[in-house]
């Protein structure tokens, strides 16, 4: 294996402003060296460290599906030093990338099962990667019913609008969009993700639930899933927090004896309940 | 000494019993020789943990900041100076603290003692009149307290508490006059010599921030070294970064440092941090006739000005 600390150079190919407040942008990146591109094989739910040279690095989940070869996408919210620097960058500029790290979603487990993906706001990015992956070509046949429940504060805060439209036009995937506060022209639902989930989530029988989003959303959605009969083992969450080295050495992301960067970031709710943790949610 | 300890315990018990304070911050016996350490007493029956001896080296004023309780605090001269500065800087309300002032004849420098004994393991230490007796497995050694005081204690001019609610023990004689012979002789060295000295000192820094955290006046919610947006200073042990950390920290304490020496005592590598602070104290006194931690009424020197302040350093073309 190559040096895991080495950032591979990537070029920004496209920057898309996702939200109406312009605080979330999706960056499309391509590798400068061909061999790097070939080496970077990932699964939905894994993450990578992006380096803004001179500023530092920060972890982000891949928002693109590995089935879309040639480029990577990351949706990045402007919060800290690195993300602020990223937001000031444009097409043609160079970043570094290290990864992929972490376990990703347990695709094997989902095979032959129903999957419900519940996402809120910015936390939807790796679920988008997963959805794109599951509905791509022959992959679709491997899973039964796929339901996407995705919410945001307002319509202007929903990401991946063109993907959402594509999905909505397909008959083999059910998509429910919801906003806390609607705007003129909004045709989806109004209400929090947890409320909508209670209404539209498929039967818990034979179904896996994936939840990604802000802590408050997760906190309110978990009891709903319990109510619907989902056992803890069939609820999966992604903890994308405070990873640094990505290889279980730097001691930053551990929750109890688990390293989020290696053993996670995707954990079943049953696993999470077993961790000795500082209050995660 | 026993009488003094009993007084401290008695006052602490009364304060807690009468509900005048929620906690008494004082010193207790440490776990190894030469160490007394901060302790927090919350009930009268715990008050017997409190002690006083020649090893009470921490500046307890560090603990009063950002606490909502009413506190009793056992304070020596330098601790009270720090408390006074904190009151002045509105980090603690005067009525929030009950100061049990203790005159102090200086604390024993454990690092120098250890260096003196080279390699022998100290098992117990007993403080006597003017001396202390060290006992190890196969040796005994009696040393003069005066010769093993911390450098900051050797030049201390405020051994007696400057502010207190109750004074425990007899006031001790103060050394008179503010003199800085150490700084003056250092100033006499060449630029190169001074630079060499500081470079060597700073090169030992491991950026553990014990100096900052032990300092009662370093209470910024976010220290400039920790700020990340913008990041003012690199976090590695790069020579330039560590030197600038110490320079800026000292400068931020200009006119506020009470010269307690807590920084230097906390430093595991024994870096001469205090030299920086003392230089600034000396200049603040010379230029602005101000000494930190003495008077509640005087305005901090860098928060004010006089139209006739020195212009000697202004460049004239």
């Amino acid at each position, binding site marked *: *294996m190559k*040096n*895991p*600390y*080495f*950032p591979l150079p990537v070029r920004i190919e496209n920057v898309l402003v996702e939200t109406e407040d312009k605080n979330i942008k999706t960056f499309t990146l391509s590798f*400068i060296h061909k061999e790097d591109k070939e080496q970077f094989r990932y699964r939905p739910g894994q993450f990578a460290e992006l*380096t803004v*040279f*001179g500023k*530092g*690095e*920060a972890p982000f989940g891949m928002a693109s599906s590995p089935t879309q070869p040639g480029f990577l996408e990351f949706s990045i919210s402007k919060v*800290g030093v690195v993300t602020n620097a990223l937001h000031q960058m444009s097409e043609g500029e160079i970043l*570094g990338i290290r990864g992929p790290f972490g376990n990703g979603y347990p695709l094997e487990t989902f095979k032959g099962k129903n999957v419900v993906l519940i996402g809120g706001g910015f936390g939807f990015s790796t679920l988008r990667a997963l959805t794109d992956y599951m509905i791509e070509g022959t992959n679709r046949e491997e899973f039964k019913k796929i339901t996407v429940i995705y919410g945001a504060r307002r319509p202007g805060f929903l990401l991946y609008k063109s993907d959402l439209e594509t999905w909505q036009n397909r008959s083999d995937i059910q998509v429910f969009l919801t906003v806390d506060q609607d705007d003129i022209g909004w045709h989806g639902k109004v209400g929090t993700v947890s409320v909508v989930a209670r209404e539209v989530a498929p039967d818990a029988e034979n179904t896996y639930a994936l939840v990604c989003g802000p802590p408050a959303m997760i906190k309110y959605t978990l009891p709903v899933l319990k109510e619907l009969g989902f056992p803890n083992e069939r609820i999966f969450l992604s903890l994308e*927090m*405070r990873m640094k080295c990505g290889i279980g*050495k*730097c*001691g*930053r992301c551990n929750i*109890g*004896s688990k390293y989020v960067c290696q053993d996670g970031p995707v954990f079943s709710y049953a696993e999470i309940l077993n961790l*000795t943790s*500082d209050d*995660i949610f | 000494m026993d009488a003094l300890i009993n007084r401290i315990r008695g006052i602490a018990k009364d304060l807690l019993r009468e509900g005048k304070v929620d906690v008494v911050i004082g010193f207790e016996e*440490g*776990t*190894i*020789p030469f*160490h*007394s350490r901060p302790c*927090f007493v919350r009930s009268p029956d715990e008050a017997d943990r409190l002690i006083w001896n020649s090893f009470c080296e*921490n500046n307890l004023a*560090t*603990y009063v900041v950002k606490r909502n309780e009413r506190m009793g605090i056992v304070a020596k001269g330098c601790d009270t100076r720090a408390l006074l500065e904190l009151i002045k800087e509105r980090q603690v309300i005067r009525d929030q603290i009950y100061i049990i002032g203790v005159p102090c004849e200086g604390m024993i420098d454990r*690092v*120098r003692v*250890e*260096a003196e004994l080279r*390699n022998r*393991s100290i098992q117990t230490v007993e403080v006597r009149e003017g001396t202390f007796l060290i006992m190890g497995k196969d040796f005994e050694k009696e040393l003069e307290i005066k010769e093993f005081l911390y450098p900051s204690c050797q030049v201390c001019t405020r051994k007696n508490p400057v502010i207190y609610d109750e004074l425990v023990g007899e006031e001790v004689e103060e050394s008179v006059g503010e003199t800085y012979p150490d700084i003056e002789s250092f100033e006499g060295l060449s630029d190169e010599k001074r630079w060499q000295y500081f470079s060597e000192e700073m090169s*030992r820094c*491991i*950026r*553990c*921030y*014990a100096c900052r*955290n032990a300092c009662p006046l370093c209470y910024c919610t976010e220290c400039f070294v*920790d700020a*990340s947006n913008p990041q003012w200073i*690199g*976090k*590695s*042990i*790069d020579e330039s970064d560590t030197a600038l950390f110490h320079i800026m920290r000292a400068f931020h304490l200009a006119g506020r440092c009470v010269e307690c020496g807590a920084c230097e*005592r*906390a430093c595991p*590598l*024994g870096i001469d941090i205090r030299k920086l602070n003392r230089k600034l104290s000396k200049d603040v006194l010379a230029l602005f006739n101000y000494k930190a931690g003495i008077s509640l009424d005087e305005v901090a020197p860098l928060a004010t000005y006089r139209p006739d302040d020195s212009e000697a350093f202004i460049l004239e073309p």
Partner: protein
Amino acid sequence: MKAKTIRKKDISGFLDRLIQAYRVYAPVMQNGYFLFKTIKSGSEASLNYHNTKMSPKDILFPQSEVLFRYQLDKPGVEIDMPAQDERNLVIFGIRPCDVRGIQALDNVFSKNPKDPYFEERRSKTVIVGLGCKETHNGCFCTTVGGGPCADDGSDLFLIDIGDEYLIRIISDKGEVLLKEEDLPDAETQKITAAAEVAEKAQEALRPCVEVQGSEDILTQRFNDPVWDVISEKCIGCGVCTYLCPTCHCFDICDEAVNKEGKGIRIWDSCQYPLFTRLASGLNPRDTVGKRMRQRIMHKFVYFPDEQGMLGCTGCGRCVIECPVNLDIREVLNILLRTGAAR
């Protein structure tokens, strides 16, 4: 096991010869305390010491280390790994507790994915341990499963038997160091003498608390308010973690001027409030109590769980150097004794 003896006065000459072929680190007295330093002459080293102020972990895991350098204005972006020292290393006269510290780091850094920087140096390192005849008042290696003369992990191991050291030859790597030396094989009575020294030192340092079963008790007490009480005096500095031979947490920073820059790894400490603060401002370990709990839990619960050994070697640096004498032995005593009583 093979053993040789060397006269104390011959150590300096032995070191001089080692310096020809190796980069030799040995305890050196400077500014009133000892540190492991690269020595240029055997006479700089002194084996008459308790322990060094800092653990020697920085030899293998430096506090600041350049991971890569880059130059952004060159076509295609150049990223270079900095050159490493070619020579093999000898860490001479390291105490058993610090050898265990290196074993702990081995577990962290040599586990897959391997850390190439640590691995590179570690594979070239020969460890010459030195038994403790007498222990310091902060020592507690016997509490955490070590011993003043525990020789596992060393390649050679020295025990003070008066005018001579007995050298236990533990590995082939160690034997190589002695190849050029004309040292007598140890006589049986000297081997026995060394064993006695070891036994006496072990006897003299009684365990201060029973750590067997600590994992369960500490885990049970995770949400106990006692953490806040114990840690109240903690001033939140990094002394305990930076001086510790096993603490391995680090941060990766990027420093650049114009188009030229470097990625550096620097030690970091779980005792700093910023350690876990997220960019959003959320901090899962927002109190001193939680941070101290993390340190204790990591050493006595998580580390054993992940690496199969305790994350504390009982070197006592955190005990001696803590500015407020927050003694980990006492902390364990409070947690384990009162916890067990429940």
